[in-house]
């Protein structure tokens, strides 16, 4: 009896610590959003920024300081929120892929999805060909190719029998194939086109707009609650196909559904941002090291870690050489890799 109370208390404490971690991340994100919207040529205090955001949300109740409302709502806030959504989505997609494929290196990038998106964008930039015309030419192609890669991985895995190793190997093969196509396009492209392709691969949230943010938000709002609802299935799959099947998870169908959702989230983000690597790989690892691998808390927590990483990196990218803006993909790596290695080494020591 006494032992059972100890176990229940211990488990309750574990859950409380996880909730605190998520609460802490949320608070940090709200603060960082406030700080991030102050960055730019027109200077505001953090308090003024919050006031301007609140004034936009509740016009009758709050009043924005002069110009702050217009500058923040028209120019800055969508970019900041886009970084939050993109970071959140990429981290969640990475968590799902690493979980179901049981591979710590699985991410939208190691599975070739980002590589395919780059090829799609390159085709649009170099050849001017695509399914959607106008300003959505590059975006449409990137999205389509990202989904095409996911389908190809699925097709190969299906042919050989669905298994995590098969999917990872198929993903790596796809990555090399699309990289080769991109290289070919760069080879035949003009200097200007080459520059555009390379710039696309840097990744950036520069081109965010409210409509683009709305598209990403809608996809996240439709998919993430479903992933959370199926957290137990993700937990079971992370332990192995046989364990999951024994616990009543329809393995093959679930793997396909989760891969499609993770690929969709990735595709809809990177088609707007270009290849922002690293977040999807590292945010889940960082989170797992701190609060463990239970997907009920891993998904929201790694999403928040991803959002903080990307927003933090974007804020540094905008301020370090202001008014020049560095590509955010470069900053994410500079910022996150040392932190990741520190966490990893610390874990090995203990």
């Amino acid at each position, binding site marked *: 009896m006494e032992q059972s109370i100890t176990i229940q208390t211990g488990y309750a404490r574990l859950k409380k610590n996880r909730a605190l971690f998520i609460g802490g991340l949320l608070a940090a994100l709200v603060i960082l959003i406030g700080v991030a919207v102050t960055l730019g040529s027109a200077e505001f205090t953090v308090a003024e920024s919050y006031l301007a955001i609140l004034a936009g949300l509740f016009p009758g109740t709050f009043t924005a300081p002069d110009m702050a409302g217009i500058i923040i709502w028209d120019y800055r806030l969508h970019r900041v929120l886009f970084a939050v959504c993109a970071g959140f989505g990429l981290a969640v997609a990475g968590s799902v892929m690493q979980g179901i494929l049981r591979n710590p290196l699985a991410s939208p990038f190691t599975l070739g999805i980002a590589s395919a998106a780059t090829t799609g964008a390159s085709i649009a930039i170099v050849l001017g060909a695509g399914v959607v015309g106008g300003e959505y030419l590059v975006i449409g192609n990137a999205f389509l190719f990202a989904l095409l890669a996911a389908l190809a991985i699925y097709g190969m895995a299906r042919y050989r029998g669905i298994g995590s190793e098969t999917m990872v190997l198929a993903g790596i093969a796809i990555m090399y194939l699309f990289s080769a196509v991109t290289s070919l396009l760069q080879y035949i492209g003009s200097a200007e086109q080459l520059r555009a392709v390379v710039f696309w691969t840097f990744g950036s949230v520069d081109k965010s707009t409210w409509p683009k943010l709305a598209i990403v938000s809608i996809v996240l709002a439709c998919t993430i609650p479903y992933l959370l609802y199926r957290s137990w299935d993700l937990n079971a799959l992370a332990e192995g196909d046989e364990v999951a099947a*024994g616990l009543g998870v329809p393995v093959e169908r679930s793997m396909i559904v989760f891969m499609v959702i993770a690929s969709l989230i990735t595709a809809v983000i990177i088609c707007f941002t270009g290849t922002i690597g690293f977040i999807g790989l590292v945010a889940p690892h960082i989170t797992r090291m701190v609060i463990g691998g*239970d997907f009920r808390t891993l998904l929201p927590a790694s999403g928040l870690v991803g959002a903080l990483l990307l927003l933090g990196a974007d804020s540094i990218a905008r301020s370090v050489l202001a008014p020049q803006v560095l590509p955010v993909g470069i900053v994410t790596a500079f910022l996150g890799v040392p932190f990741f290695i520190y966490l990893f080494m610390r874990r090995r020591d203990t």
Partner: protein
Amino acid sequence: MPRLSVEDLSFAYRDRRVLHGITFSVGAGEILGLVGPNGCGKTTLIRCIDGMLTPGGGRVRLDGREIRSMHRREVAQAMAYVPQSAGNRTSATVFETVLMGRRPYLNWTVSREDEEKVIAALDLLDLGDLALRKIAELSGGERQRVMIARALVQETGAILLDEPTSNLDICHQMAAMEVLSGLAGEKGLSIVVALHDLNLAATYCHRLMVMKAGAIYGYGTPDEVLTEEMLRSVYGIEAVVKRDLEAPYMIPVRSGRPGEGV
């Protein structure tokens, strides 16, 4: 009526026949040991019984219902499966790993009742002290007990175990089999367990099914099945089978004995 019955089951990987003509049944409180050399089809049979692989022919019935007509969640509520080397990939605590056994009944939230069932299973398998430790920190024997505890909280009438003692020393092998024996006796569970150790199988299983090249070679009580002729024919070894204890046991004999033919 037997709880679990298998009738004329067959299975093939593409054009390679792996199982054929498998028929047996397991009643409540009974332990059936699957024995046979490597590659004889034990794991494939267990996967077919649990519905993870679709048999090419035949039927598997659980409490009178055919497995293939049941939803996976229903199967998991009626039959638990402990695969080989389970629990090697999890970064979770013992408590959470066992809690996962409630998955066939859970949506998202965990009730107090679920937690109490986990604690009862941990208690039964003497794992209470390890409840908040990580699986990765446990020994092979402890990990195996955790997997059995997880199967228990599934609250099924039948449990399938694929070589649950393969990584354990003799002491832990016996401890694991004692737990299974107790569960069969006290809770009336039907247990199918694939084993390599014939003496362990003969000691703890009510009946043994010897498999050879995907078919049943022998089926019956350990006394009926464990014979020198069977060992010669199925395993290709010479052995002496002794019957001076409660259960029969075998002692392998080297084919070129020291002194013989010299």
